[in-house]
């Protein structure tokens, strides 16, 4: 089953790449603006031999990782605090619902004014976008705590900290992990967007340089790299999720009673 799926996946990808080669070659779209797969692959081959490319990749990953770490840390702490302190959830709900839908890219002018074109600008956008993903999942997760389990823990004399540790956290963890996985993807999108628009160093800025330089295949090659990065990040996030939730029904795959 697994082998068949992998084979199908590979065949699908191969067909997609072949299509990318054929469409411009047949003249359905202009080669000048949509180069065939082979020319993009050539440009990619050139890119990876360039030291500046690896520096840019490092810059993007730094912005992504730092931003994600800050967002996850802050999201979990704030989420737990808001859920545990009485009345805080109700008091903050409207503010959270107001702030959450503000698109991070709308903050670009603010980021540029505050920090110019450096890493901190990227971080502002990345953290703002991914923080809400984590926070909202934590809030939902805490809401999901089984009242019977909570009462049982109280009856057994577990203190507030022990209840957070043994009842609340295990219940919320699958939600938190979903939040982290979503945040990881969003963080990459925002890191690249920030670099592309603001010009902070990284893959996004390199895409912009290729674009203004009329280097079309190079631009597509860099876009492919960001796609691959997204793929790796998603696979990585899923692996972390599976490890952290090895004990959970959703991962154990047992029949639920």
């Amino acid at each position, binding site marked *: 089953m697994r082998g068949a799926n992998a084979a199908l996946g590979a065949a699908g990808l191969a067909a997609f790449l072949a299509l990318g080669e054929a469409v411009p070659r047949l003249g359905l779209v*202009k080669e*000048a*603006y949509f180069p065939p797969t082979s020319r993009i692959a050539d440009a990619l081959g050139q890119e990876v031999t360039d030291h500046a490319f690896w520096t840019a990749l490092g810059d993007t990953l730094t912005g992504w990782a730092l931003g994600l770490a800050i967002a996850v840390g802050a999201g979990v702490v704030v989420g737990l605090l808001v859920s545990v302190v009485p009345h805080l959830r109700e008091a903050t709900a409207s503010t959270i619902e107001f702030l959450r839908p503000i698109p991070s890219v709308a903050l670009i002018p603010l980021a540029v004014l505050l920090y110019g074109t450096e890493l901190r600008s990227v971080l502002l956008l990345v953290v703002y976008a991914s923080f809400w993903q984590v926070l909202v999942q934590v809030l939902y997760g805490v809401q999901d705590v089984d009242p019977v389990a909570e009462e049982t823990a109280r009856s057994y004399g577990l203190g507030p900290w022990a209840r957070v540790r043994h009842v609340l956290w295990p219940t919320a963890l699958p939600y938190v992990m979903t939040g982290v996985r979503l945040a990881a993807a969003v963080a990459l999108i925002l890191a690249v967007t920030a670099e592309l628009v603001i010009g902070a160093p990284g893959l996004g800025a390199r895409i912009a*340089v*290729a*674009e*203004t*330089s*009329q*280097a079309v295949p*190079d631009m597509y090659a860099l876009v492919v790299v960001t796609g691959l990065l997204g793929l790796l990040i998603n696979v990585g996030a899923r692996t972390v999720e599976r490890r952290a939730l090895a004990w959970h029904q959703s991962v154990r795959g047992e029949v639920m009673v």
Partner: protein
Amino acid sequence: MAGKDFGAITVKKGSPIKSAKELEGKKVAVNTLKNINETAVRESVRKAGGDPSKVKFVELAFDQMPAALDSGQIDAAMVVEPALATVKGQGATEIASSLVDVAKDLTVAMYFTSTQYEQKNPDVVKKFQEATAESLAYADAHPDEVRQAVTTYTKIPAATLAQVTLPKWPAKANRASIEALEKLGEQDGLFKSTPDLDKLLP
């Protein structure tokens, strides 16, 4: 007069438009509305005997102009290098060198600092002026080295770069040309109050 400048109004290969006058009623792309390029295109139209208020300006990034011109989304593009080389490579025709139409040897860009910074760091400003003057003179005298230097911080393909028309790098601002530009800006209603060149220029 068209050609041999680093920026130009271009039309697609085979376009019926032969002069800037014929841009009346046509869609012309500039990189930013109400900037030096729009002012320059207006002057080209005016000089060719046309009415610039009849031109429809649209805003488009330079690097997107080749594709837009090629697909017919716009009728003409005020494009600069290196996109100009790409456009010419597609067989497009230059119908006017608009920046030259504003003034011969037009100063298109300068370094600015705030009065506050200049008063606090007169040494830095003086050294910067000397260093840029020296580098600009060197660039003007060594165009081949300029083409080489361009490859270190852009990704312009070698074939395109070879076709690129380099600008001039004067170390001093051409005050007469800026005055001409100022007059046009005033005429086009770009300023709330006319800038004081005595305060702005060194």
